[in-house]
């Protein structure tokens, strides 16, 4: 069954409309480099007890996930990269990146240690004292205030922890208990009485912010292995915004220049190529937003560059048509032959670009991956517009008797 020309034209117009609607409705998802925010890469470290495995990393990811949720960031990304890395992206995060690093990267192993009659200064490293309980035995942790109104962290043990805690406090009244976070003492209170209900307070010279952070860390739990920060990138909101503004302008100018070039060089067929190019831009915008593909800085360059490459198909076709005309063929059969003989070179050449973007996608991260995606999308859509849309336009103008003579091709 052959689809009639009017239906084809309607389908194309509908596609353009749908693309514009999608673009308006969903807008484009911006990468961190354009939107601003913090990009962190952590690497899990082996400990004498635990070797990092996929399973360990899964646990780390879950804990970080719940920590990041406390930051109140929309659409944070936490994903594994390779065997022992985690990538954390916090779009729009404008605080000091260090506080995000502290929150995410801290092991947050809370330990209650028996130091007997010895008081241990806050801030000292304590490794040898026996551990009574750890953060794993906690049920909840919240910010509270002591009788002087200073922020503290209120903790509540689970039943098992509460039992151990009650027993220990009953047997050690008058002695010291050291509370350590990642091996460093944050508080060393005297045990005044038995604590039977499993509820306690950590007083450690907190500010409201640091108490809140500790509570968050304790609720989310300690990481099974320590993390090391190996990459941090923070982009302020201005840099991205400036780039977007400049790129939109550059993109529009590029489209206009390419369109002018096509009209000046090819005259009437140039106009057809330009209509195809506008279709290309509309479809590209629609597809990029429909697929929720992330637009990055290099991705913008790829998009603008693809405008120049998109007309390549048309150039190949037009040159072919001209050749056929010079051989003395009729206009209609020249156009038909021109298209037919252009398929192979157009396909071959675009596939090579797709191969390059596939390799790039596989090896690249972040912005480079964004570039690869845009390049591939642009290539695929340009295949459609250069071949299908252009051909439909030719048929349409032929039918409307707008294309009349070979002169229109400058032959």
């Amino acid at each position, binding site marked *: 069954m052959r689809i009639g020309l009017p239906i084809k034209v309607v389908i194309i117009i509908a596609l353009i409309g749908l693309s514009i609607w999608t673009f308006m409705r969903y807008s484009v998802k911006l990468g961190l480099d354009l939107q601003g925010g913090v990009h962190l890469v952590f690497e899990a470290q082996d400990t004498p007890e635990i070797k990092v495995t996929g399973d360990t990393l899964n646990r780390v990811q879950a804990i970080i996930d719940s920590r990041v949720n406390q930051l109140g960031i929309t659409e944070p990304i936490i994903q594994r990269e390779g065997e022992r890395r985690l990538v954390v992206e916090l779009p729009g995060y404008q605080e000091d990146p260090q506080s995000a690093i502290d929150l995410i990267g801290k092991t947050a192993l809370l330990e209650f240690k028996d130091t007997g009659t010895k008081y241990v200064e806050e801030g000292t490293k304590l490794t040898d004292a026996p551990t009574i309980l750890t953060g794993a035995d906690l049920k909840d942790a919240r910010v509270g205030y002591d009788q002087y109104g200073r922020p503290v962290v209120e903790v509540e043990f689970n039943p098992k922890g509460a039992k151990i805690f009650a027993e220990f406090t009953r047997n050690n009244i008058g002695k010291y208990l050291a509370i350590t976070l990642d091996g460093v003492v944050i508080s060393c209170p005297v045990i005044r009485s038995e604590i039977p209900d499993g509820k306690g307070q950590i007083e450690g010279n907190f500010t409201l912010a640091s108490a809140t952070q500790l509570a968050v860390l304790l609720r989310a739990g300690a990481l099974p292995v320590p993390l090391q920060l190996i990459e941090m990138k923070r982009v302020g909101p*201005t840099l991205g915004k400036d780039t977007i503004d400049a790129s939109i302008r*550059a993109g529009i100018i590029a489209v206009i220049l390419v369109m002018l070039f096509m009209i000046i060089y090819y005259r009437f067929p140039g106009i057809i190529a330009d209509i195809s190019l506008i279709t290309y831009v509309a479809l590209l915008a629609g597809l990029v937003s429909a697929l929720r593909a992330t637009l990055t800085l290099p991705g913008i360059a790829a998009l603008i*560059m693809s405008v120049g490459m998109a007309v390549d198909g048309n*150039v190949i076709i037009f*040159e072919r048509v001209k050749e056929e005309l010079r051989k003395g063929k009729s206009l209609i059969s020249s156009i038909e032959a021109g298209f037919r003989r252009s398929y192979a070179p157009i396909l071959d050449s675009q596939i090579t670009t797709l*191969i390059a973007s596939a390799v*790039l996608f596989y090896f690249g991260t*972040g912005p480079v991956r964004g570039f690869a995606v845009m390049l591939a999308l642009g290539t695929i859509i340009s295949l459609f517009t250069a071949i299908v849309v252009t051909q439909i336009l030719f048929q349409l103008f032929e039918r409307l008797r707008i294309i009349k003579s070979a002169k229109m091709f400058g032959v």
Partner: protein
Amino acid sequence: MGYFEKSRINIVKYTSLWIGIAALVIILSILLFFTRGLNWGLDFTGGTLIEYRLGKPFNSVGEIRPLLAEFNLEKSFLQKTEDNGVIIRVKELSKETRNAITQKLSVHFGKAELVREEFIGPVIGAELKRAAIIATILGLIAQVIYISLRFKPDMALAADIALVHDICAVILAFILTQKEINTPFIAILLTVVGYSINDTVVIFDRIRENLKLRPRDSKETFPQLVNRSILENLTRSINTVLTTILAVLVVYFLGGSAIKDFAFGLTVGIAAGGYSSIFIAAPVLVLLRKRQWLKEEEKIKEEETVRSSSVNKLTETPPKPATQSRTSTVRKKRR
């Protein structure tokens, strides 16, 4: 006939010149790579980078250097960017020092907005270099396989030589300008790989087609045929390179400071890719097939002499073996 076909330019004739130029680019880039070297950016070297946008214009980074003296950072790598921006690159930077620098700069320049901050661990850089090399080589191999499948292995080889030239040209441009290279550099290399092959493929496609359409008794030699194919395709080659470069140049001039270097690399790569398909890939193919077409030409001559001698002898049937062998060579080409 089109403009270029009429012009009868003989590109293939100067094959040794084009290959000489290509060899020069390749050798020079390798030589300079090891002597002058590339300006590896933070992504490759590791370290810390902060970028400020200052409230007042300044002439050179020399004005900022003394301000960093109290942090012992006056010898750091400083770079002026557009819009009164400055990039400071150091090995390590504590949160406190960074805040103190921000404070100092904002007092001095009225405003100092920290627009970018990056820390890259030393492992990442080494990994990235490896990834860049592997990705480029893999890209080359993938293209060779594709062209071997769609065309002929010797065409793949010719295209690959052109590709190596293009990659070297981009690297050379970055060595000469000492522009900093970062992760997107990999994207430049791979795009150039894709673009250059794209351009070459269209010419090879034409060569293949012309070989197919060549009449059996054609007097046209293989070099002449390649030259004709190049000329027939020249308008397309030039126009495509022009429109693409036009677009990338707009990005270079108007796209903002952040993608300037990226656009620069693409421009060089696309120009090199366009040049190499015409002046390297096709002529190299002629060289690679030299033996084949010389033999073929000999056969044509042989046949002619045989034919003319047979005419002299008034024999009616032309000698069979010669014709057969010639058909077989032609058929080989036709695929």
